[in-house]
């Protein structure tokens, strides 16, 4: 029982990432009709926003300390972060320590700008092209983006720790009556799960309860009619692209302490997130979120030693098996609508 609870918990944080990426993918597909294979790269760039802000806060000046030697035996240069010099050591250290949550604020304008630039500069030219063309150009864009990141940040993962207040784990075992230490779950993963629920809720609320959201939903249902009413739906859809990019970016920022960011992390999530979108139903926001959590938890279960001893390699294919089963029984996915990608 304790193993099952642990795997459910494990699946939640991965499912959160799938859900957030799939949500953005669905937003873009639902509004612009574009299959965006560069969306994983946006998640990765978000994670590197956390790295960048951490590095900016850690920018230092050097003072030569003749009492210490560097690795070549020369007088060592001691680094002091500017923020510590400006705001005092404790407050400056706290700013660096909290760089990941603060990177959320940093990432929103950055990702909006990248989203607008991508949509206006490249993707809008492919609206009327076949989906295969869109996939090729966005996949190529993803490779370009990850190579740019690798050029500036290198290929190795970059440690980006969560604030020290969130280090350590919560003991669910003790709370649920199991042995102490049997079911533990890192605090930051709990934060990530809660954060994803907040972001998903905010996106749904934005689409549901604002005039802008109402127009976007109307445009998703019938673009031509909304256009005939004199509303510039293209502009709103461009903004939605920026918002989807920001959601992916925020998901990446908060994921940085879970998996040290590296240039390839977007690709690792991209394919599975597409499966999530298809399983959830193309164009269905609720389906994307539901399928994200569902597949995250199932993947986690499939990684259990007991299951792998019965079915070796099942953890690598479980998501695809589930996708096959669901598409055979419900061809439009869990919550897909008729007519989407069926022409």
């Amino acid at each position, binding site marked *: 029982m304790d193993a099952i609870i642990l*795997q459910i918990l494990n699946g939640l944080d991965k499912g959160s990432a799938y859900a957030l990426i799939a949500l953005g993918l669905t937003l873009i597909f639902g509004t612009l009709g574009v299959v965006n294979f560069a969306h994983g790269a946006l998640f990765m760039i978000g994670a590197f926003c956390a790295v960048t802000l951490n590095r900016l806060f850690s920018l230092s000046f050097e003072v030569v300390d003749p009492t210490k030697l560097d690795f070549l035996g020369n007088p060592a240069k001691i680094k002091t972060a500017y923020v510590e010099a400006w705001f005092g050591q404790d407050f400056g250290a706290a700013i660096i320590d909290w760089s990941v949550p603060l990177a959320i604020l940093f990432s929103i304008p950055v990702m909006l700008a990248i989203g607008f630039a991508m949509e206006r500069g490249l993707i809008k030219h492919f609206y009327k092209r076949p989906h295969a063309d869109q996939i090729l150009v966005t996949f190529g864009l993803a490779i370009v983006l990850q190579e740019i990141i690798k050029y500036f940040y290198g290929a190795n*993962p970059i440690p980006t720790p969560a604030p020290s207040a969130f280090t350590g784990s919560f003991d669910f075992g003790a709370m649920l009556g199991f042995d102490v230490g049997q079911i533990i779950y890192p605090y930051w993963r709990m934060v990530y799960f809660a954060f994803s629920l907040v972001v998903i809720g905010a996106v749904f609320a934005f689409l549901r309860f604002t005039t802008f959201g109402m127009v976007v939903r109307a445009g998703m249902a019938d673009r031509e009619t909304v256009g005939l009413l004199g509303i510039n739906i293209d502009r709103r859809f461009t903004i939605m692209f920026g918002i989807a990019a920001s959601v992916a970016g925020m998901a990446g920022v908060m994921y940085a302490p879970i998996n040290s960011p590296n240039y390839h992390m977007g690709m*690792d999530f991209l394919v599975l997130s597409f499966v999530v979108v298809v399983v959830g139903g193309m164009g269905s926001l609720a389906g994307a979120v539901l399928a994200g959590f569902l597949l995250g938890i199932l993947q986690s279960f499939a990684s259990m030693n007991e299951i792998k001893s019965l079915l070796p390699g099942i953890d690598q294919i479980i998501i695809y098996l589930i996708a096959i089963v669901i598409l055979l029984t419900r061809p439009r996915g869990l919550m897909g609508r008729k007519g989407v990608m069926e022409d």
Partner: protein
Amino acid sequence: MTRGNLTRRGLLRTGAVVTGAGLALPTIFTSRASAFTNDPTGDTVTLGFNVPQTGPYADEGADELRAFQLAVEHLNGEGDGGMLNTFSSKALQGNGIRGKKVAYVTGDTQTKSDAARASAQSMIQKDGAIMISGGSSSGVAVAVQGLCQEAGVIFMAGLTHSNDTTGKDKKANGFRHFFNAYMSGAALAPVLAKNYGTDRRAYHLTADYTWGWTQQESIQAATEALGWTTVNNVLTPLAETDFSAYITPVLQSGADVLVLNHYGGNMVNSLTQAVQFGLRDKVVNGKNFEIVVPLYSELMAKGAGDNIKGIFGSTNWSWTLQDEGTKAFVKSFGTKYGFPPSNAAQTCYAQTLLYADAVERAGSFAPCDVGAALEGFEFDGLGNGPTLYRAADHQCFKDVLVMKGKEDPANEFDNLELVEVTPRAQVEYAPDHPMFAGGELGACNNGA
């Protein structure tokens, strides 16, 4: 009696053929006698450095390439000479190799066997490389070593730690300076027993490819020989980034040690997540839970940050050593690049010098002559103490370093501290040891 139909034209034709053959024969015999692939006939000799310039090990590859470039400079008499000044063999004079200026070409392995073979083949066929070096993945090293054997060029392996490289996949044209998984186990296990006791239950997470398998086998054998038991060994996909689903079962397994047979980004992620899940804070079987990373690299240590503190592992070499060879190399490398070299860089630098030195001592670029000069070669002054290139399997035998993540680093490069220099005798094994069985060196191949 018949009379031959001798005509003036026939005589001229026959004479021409005989004369031509007479002129050509000695050349054919001569060239057959010494022909080998990419015999350098001009003023330069070209070496091929095949490293991952893209892909997950690109940072290791970049450091290897820096070392290769530094070695070429030193061979050509540029810079301060580095370890040429401390190398026990004095055959190298800083005037290139056999008087020919050293040039080089680079290839990108992408950490993929097929891409690595393609780039090595291109360097051999198109660029005329007479020796290939490089690495960062044992799968790649084994593949490229096989290609070099077929092509008739020497392969001086870079970073490759699998037992198979000089075990079941060894080749006569391939030589490895780097240590291997068996040596890691032999060096590490006594230190683990000394620090953690002999009554331990280990749980292994292992990268699912040749290096991971042989490392796990080596560490398991070495620790079980000292009294440890192995609770489980779980293979993890090489592409995995989130190890949480693999780590949580450790909590319920009754194990009190987690051995991470992971390298590069795999290791950074699995270690970080193991620490996040509080494994290092646990007490199991009345003992503190411990994590072991059998193969360390400086770049990985940097990537793992604070999580590596206090964790034991092994390395082939460390820039913190105080022998003259190491000091000379760190000075050259650090002055040129501004940071200390990794142990991947050191092995690539040493391999380049060892190849050049073997050519000088052999008096020939022919791979079989160079191989013969390397076989059984004893040397010192390249940072690892007295070292033997064993003839039986082309594996270098030297001291192995047991390292520990430093608790209080003095600077950003000061991630690992030296715990023990394990003497060469402790990590030696018979050429027919079961972990290395199944392959033959075969005959050396001059190619052409």
